[in-house]
């Protein structure tokens, strides 16, 4: 039996895996890293490290930036220098000790030491000013948007330097949602102009400094961005939804990028979930997408489920498909 890492590599390289990779099993997130990120508790509200008000109302599955007139941080993109101030990312060595110890304790045969980064550059632009304003600004004030993205990129690179210096992560698991369920937010041309160079810098820096794999989360349609994903250095696109033609993408790009997902969280992860429905969805995903360049998983951007038991039931469903297909 292959180790977890060996098995993953066989999937990524089109070799001979001996089982399906089960969702997030190969990533050991080191969440004890010092971070500037300020998040609300469920039911709470915070002003985060950028000055953006974030609220997590009771009963919701996640937190939301608050963009009403009283709370929005950046009302005019041309004034971004006045309002957008990057938080400090340099922490004393002592603050890294716990994370370094956690990384050492990882089962290195089966799991990669993984650093988690969120939100990404695109998400930050709309966190700061609201989605509609951000999207219109790409057209109406492209120079200011480009400047802001450069600034956010430098912030990410500054933290990347700290991460590789102290933690030596093997995987970067990076969130940035680039689309809705049916479309990308930006046209591929606009995405390429504004985000490809920025992400080439960020992911290139990680790869030049010992990171083996880049796993990027975007639970959306983004098939038209796959060539850009490959160029910027993404090894695994996590969160790939079935609104993308996954078998076609595997055929076309599989040797350059692996697709992780294929099961919509909304379909299996709800209050009335059933083991049968989970098994049915994973059976479909595994049969449709095959053993290579594909990692079955729900589209959720972390190795958890919103409703207790769904993540574990998903693992069991994947084990069942391993027995059937390997």
């Amino acid at each position, binding site marked *: 039996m292959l180790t977890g890492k060996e098995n993953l590599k066989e999937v990524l390289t089109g070799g001979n895996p001996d089982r399906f990779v089960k969702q997030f099993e190969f990533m050991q997130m080191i969440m004890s890293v010092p971070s500037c990120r300020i998040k609300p508790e469920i039911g709470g509200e915070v002003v985060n490290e950028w000055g953006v008000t974030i609220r997590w*109302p009771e009963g919701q599955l996640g937190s939301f930036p608050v963009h009403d007139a009283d709370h929005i941080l950046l009302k005019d993109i041309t004034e971004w220098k006045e309002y957008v101030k990057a938080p400090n990312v340099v922490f004393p060595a002592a603050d890294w000790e716990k994370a370094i110890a956690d990384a050492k304790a990882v089962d290195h045969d089966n799991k990669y030491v993984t650093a988690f980064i969120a939100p990404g550059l695109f998400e930050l632009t709309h966190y700061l000013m609201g*989605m509609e304003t951000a*999207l*219109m600004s790409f*057209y109406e004030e492209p120079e200011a948007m480009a400047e802001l993205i450069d600034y956010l990129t430098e912030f990410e690179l500054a933290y990347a330097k700290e991460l590789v210096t102290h933690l030596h992560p093997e995987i970067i698991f990076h969130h940035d949602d680039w689309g809705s369920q049916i479309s990308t937010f*930006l*046209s591929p041309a606009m995405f390429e102009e504004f985000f490809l160079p920025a992400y080439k810098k960020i992911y290139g820096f990680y790869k030049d400094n010992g990171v083996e794999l880049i796993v990027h989360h975007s639970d959306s349609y983004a098939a038209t961005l796959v060539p850009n994903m490959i160029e910027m250095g993404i090894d695994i696109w996590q969160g790939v939804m079935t609104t993308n033609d996954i078998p076609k993408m595997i055929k076309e790009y599989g040797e350059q990028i692996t697709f992780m997902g294929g099961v919509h969280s909304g379909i299996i992860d709800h209050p009335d979930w059933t083991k049968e429905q989970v098994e049915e969805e994973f059976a479909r995903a595994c049969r449709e997408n095959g053993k290579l360049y594909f990692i079955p998983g729900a589209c959720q951007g972390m190795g958890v489920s919103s409703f207790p038991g769904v993540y574990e039931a998903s693992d069991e469903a994947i084990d069942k498909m391993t027995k059937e297909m390997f």
Partner: protein
Amino acid sequence: MSKIEEVKAKVEAGKSKLVPGLVQEALDAGNNPQDILDAMVESMGVVGEKFSTGEIFVPEMLIAAKAMSKGVDVLKPHLAGDGASKLGTCIIGTVAGDLHDIGKNLVSLMIESAGFDMVDLGVDVPADTFVQAIKDNDNVKIVACSGLLTSTMPALKEAVATIKASGLTGFKVIVGGAPVTPEYAVEIGADGFAPDAGTAAVKAKELAV
């Protein structure tokens, strides 16, 4: 190219800084204000169609809607009556328990651009609030309920059921949001469904007649 054609082209291209001036020029050239408005509505129909087919994306749709809105500001004092839409009023909101507003806002922009007066109730809207808004506003022709989460689908069902059970008439209910399917829309008793903002505007016009 006539002034009206220019207005149409610039709305479609989202030139919000140019459209107000062009609308004024079209008025100065003696064009009927209603014809200018109809031309802009037609442009937004093209924009919605291009969005639905994936030819353009959200930013292009947003800047076109903004350009039209700037043009309408110039046009309003010249329109007959109180400037109220001939298509009627559309009440829109995201259902109870759901805080997602991006899709709902896009639908609102496109339905407004199609010629409706919009009453946006925001997010996390209880079913009774939809009913109250129908009572409080004149000439309501469309009620649009949005829901993004699978877990808030029961709230969408409740909203439609409550609106239908209110005894109020004269309007149609449309639903949409990522997990909503045409079959689900029928199942919960909605009059219409749209998979995206462009189609929602077309559907609203179709049902309001």
